[in-house]
C-alpha cells in the first residue's frame, strides 16, 4: 500500500494469478485468466488463459490451459488447447498434448506427445451464487 497506487498502476505482467518464488501452493488452482508460477505447486492448474511456468518453478501437477509456456520443471501431464512452448531451461516429465508444439534445443521432455486439432477447452466449474436473500435476512437478524 502507501502511495504506490494513484495513477501509476504497475503490472505484475498480464497474469491475474501469480505464484511467487518462495510460495508453496497445494490444491487445485483454477482461473479464467492467466497464471504465472515462479514457486512450487502440488495439485492441479486449470485455466482458459495462459499458464507461464517460470525458470524457478517446480510443479507437481497436471496443467490444462489454452497456452502453456514452460521454463521450469513440470512433473505431470500438460494439455494446451492451443500452444505449448518448452524453452531451453524447461523440463517436462509427463505426457503433453497441444495444437501447436514448440520445444527449444536444450529443453528436456520425457513422456508421450499428442498433437490434436481440437483439444477440448478446460471446463470451468459452474459458480453458483449463494442465496443472497437468506444470507441478508440472517445478517439482519443478528443486528
Amino acid at each position, binding site marked *: *500500500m*502507501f*502511495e504506490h*497506487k494513484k495513477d501509476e*498502476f504497475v*503490472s*505484475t505482467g498480464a497474469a491475474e494469478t501469480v505464484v511467487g518464488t518462495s510460495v*508453496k501452493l497445494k490444491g487445485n488452482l483454477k482461473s479464467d485468466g492467466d497464471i504465472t508460477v515462479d514457486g512450487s505447486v502440488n495439485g492441479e492448474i486449470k485455466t482458459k488463459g495462459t499458464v507461464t511456468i517460470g525458470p524457478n518453478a517446480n510443479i507437481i501437477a497436471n496443467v490444462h490451459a489454452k497456452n502453456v509456456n514452460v521454463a521450469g520443471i513440470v512433473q505431470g501431464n500438460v494439455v494446451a488447447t492451443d500452444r505449448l512452448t518448452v524453452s531451453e531451461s524447461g523440463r517436462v516429465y509427463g505426457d503433453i498434448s497441444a495444437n501447436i508444439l514448440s520445444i527449444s534445443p536444450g529443453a528436456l521432455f520425457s513422456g508421450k506427445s499428442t498433437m490434436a486439432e481440437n483439444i477440448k477447452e478446460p471446463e470451468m466449474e459452474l459458480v453458483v451464487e449463494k442465496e443472497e436473500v437468506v444470507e441478508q435476512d440472517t445478517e439482519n437478524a*443478528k443486528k
Partner: protein
Amino acid sequence: MYYYIINPASGGGKINKVQDKLKERLRELGIAGEFVKSTGPGDVARLTKMAIDRNYKTVVAVGGDGTINEIINAIGDAKVALGIIPMGSSNELANMLGINDWQIACNILAARKVEEVDLGRINDKLFVTAASIGFDNVLFDLKRSQRSGALGRFAFMTKLSAAAQKFKPIHLEFNFDDKYSVETDCFNFSLSNGAFLSYVPQKSRPQDNMLDAVLISHLSFSDTIKYGQGTLDFTKKPGQISVFHTKKIHVTSKEPVTVSADGKAVVETPVTIEVSDRKLRVIVSKKRHF
C-alpha cells in the same frame, strides 16, 4: 441534506487549517448541510447513527480511511450514500475514487454521482480498502504519528530505518475459497478490495465481488526502505510478489499476529476474511480508478 462528520484528529488536524474555506465553498455550491465534530474513538460511529436516525441521505466523512471505516461499520442497512472530503494521513479510498483534495471533493459532492462498491468483512467488521498483516501495520503506525515539514519527514525516515532493521518476515498459511492452500514467509500480506495496490494486475476492481490477496516475500533492508517510501518498483522484483483472486481466505500463523482493516488493527490471526454481502454506496468522481 448533507451531514458532515469532521474528525479533527485526522491527518494531524489538517481540517483546522481549511475549515472556514471549506464551509464557504460548500455554501457556494448549495450543499452546506449540518456539520458535526467527533470527540474521540467511537464517536464517528455514534454521529453516523444519529444522522441515520434523523433521515439524512448523505453522510460525508471529513477525514481519512480510519474515519470512513467507522462510518461504514455504523451505516448498517441504511440507504445512505457516503461522501468523502479527504483529510487523513491515509486517503486510499478517496484516491481510488478520484477525490484528490478537498476542493475537488466539494465539486464531486455537488455532482453526487453514486456507485456501489464491494466491502470486505473480518468477523463482524467491514472494510473498504484493504486488510493487512505484516509490515504495512508498522507503516500505519509510523504514518499516523508523522508530523508535517522537513523535521517530520526526517523523523519518519529514522523510525522507518529502525523498523526495517528490526522487522522479520512472518510465516503464514492461507486457505483460498476452501480450494487450495498456500504457505510462505511474508514480508507483507494485503487483501485488497480493488485497485488500491499498484502492483496488482489492472483487472482488479472494487465492484467484481472479489478480493485480491497480495503476498510480498522477503525484502532486503534497502527495498524495505523504498517500500516504506512508496518508491519500490516491483516490476524489477519478479517472483517477489504473489497475487490470488479470492472471495474468502482463512489465514493462520504459529503465533497470533495483528490483522488491520482500513489501516486500523482489528483482530489477530487466525482469521477468516471474505467479501461481504453488503455494498457501500459512495459518491465518486468521473476520474475514478475503476
